[in-house]
C-alpha cells in the first residue's frame, strides 16, 4: 500500500508531500529515537509524538517513507524545514498511538 493510499484510508493530514508513491511495508511506533534507530526498518511508517528535528534526521537515515504525528501533533519549525529539505513526508493523525496503530495494522495486513 502506498503512502497516499494510507493518507486517504486513514484520513491523515499531510504537511509535506513527499514519497507519496512509496510502498509502505509496515510501521514502527516509538517515541524514543534511539529505539527507532536500532529497530525500525526501511519502508516502515514511523508513528510518534516527538516533533523535533532529530525525527526527520532519523527518518531520512533509516529510509522511512513517512512520519505520522499522533494526537494532532505540530512539528517544530526546524523539523518541518528539515522535512522539506530532505523530502520526508510528514503526516498528522487525530488519533492517539494505540488507535492509529490498530487502524493501520488492519489495513496493512
Amino acid at each position, binding site marked *: 500500500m502506498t503512502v497516499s493510499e494510507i493518507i486517504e484510508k486513514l484520513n491523515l493530514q499531510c504537511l509535506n508531500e513527499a514519497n507519496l508513491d512509496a510502498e509502505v511495508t509496515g510501521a514502527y511506533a516509538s517515541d*524514543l*529515537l*534511539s*529505539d527507532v*534507530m*536500532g529497530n525500525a526498518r526501511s519502508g516502515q511508517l514511523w508513528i510518534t509524538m*516527538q516533533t*523535533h528535528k*532529530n525525527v526527520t*534526521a532519523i527518518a*531520512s*537515515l533509516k529510509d522511512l517513507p513517512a512520519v505520522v504525528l499522533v494526537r494532532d501533533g505540530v512539528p517544530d519549525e526546524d523539523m518541518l524545514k528539515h522535512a522539506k529539505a530532505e523530502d520526508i513526508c510528514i503526516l498528522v493523525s487525530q488519533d492517539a498511538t494505540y488507535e492509529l496503530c490498530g487502524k493501520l495494522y488492519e489495513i496493512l495486513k
Partner: protein
Amino acid sequence: MHIHSVLSPCGDIEMSPCAIVARAKERGMDIIGLTDHNSTRNADVTRRVGEQVGLHVLMGAEVTTKEEVHCLCFMPTTEKLIEFQAFLDSRVVFYPNDVDRFGYQLVVDEEENVLDQVPHLLINALDLPILELQQKVYAMGGIFIPAHIDRPSYSLSSQLGFVPDKLKVHAMELSWHCKAGGYKFLDDCPWFSDFNFIQSSDAHFIEDIAKIHSVLEMPYFSFENFKNALRQGEQVIL
C-alpha cells in the same frame, strides 16, 4: 556549565578547546563545564588550556540515559574521568555515526590537531537507566545535574514527567529559554520546584558561550567547593 566541543556531532567545527576557553575568558567567565554527548575525551585538554589563562574547567559529559534524559555529569579528577568514560563506553549501543547527517565527532589536542574520530553516534541513548547513572556518579564523587529540565525533549520533564523518588541531584539545570524572573515552567510544574537550579548556555556555537550563566559563591575554586555551593542553594544567584 554546559558547553559542547567539536566532539559532539552537533558541536560546531569551531568549538575547539582553545576557542571555547578564549571566548569564555573574554566573556568574563571564571568556571565552565565541558559536556560533550556521552564522551569526555575533549574535557582534559580543555581543562589544561583553561589552566593557562586562569579559567577553571569542570570535566564531564552530557550523558543520554536509556530513557533519553540528558544529564550533566562531572568528575573530580582526570583519573575518575577516565574511569567514568570506560563505564559509559561499556553501555554504548553501537550505531555508526553518519557525518553528513549528524556532524563530526572529533577528539582534538591543544593545537586543534585531530587525534581521533569517534565512530559510534554519541547522541544515541546508552543502555543505562537514569537512577543507575546518578548512583554511579555519586559513588565516584562526581556532580550530577539533569540537563535543561524545562525543555520539551530529552529532559526529565519530557521523558519522565516527574522526578523519580530515589533520584538524587546536586542541582537541576534550566535552559536558557527560561528567562530570569519568569520561571513559567516551574509555575506550570511545581513538583520540579524543590531543587537548586543553574542556568547554562548549552553552547554548540562560539557565539553562544556565556550567553547565560549562573553565579555561585565559594571561597576559592575547587571541585568540592563547587559541589557544596550547588547544594547550599541560598548562595546560588540566577
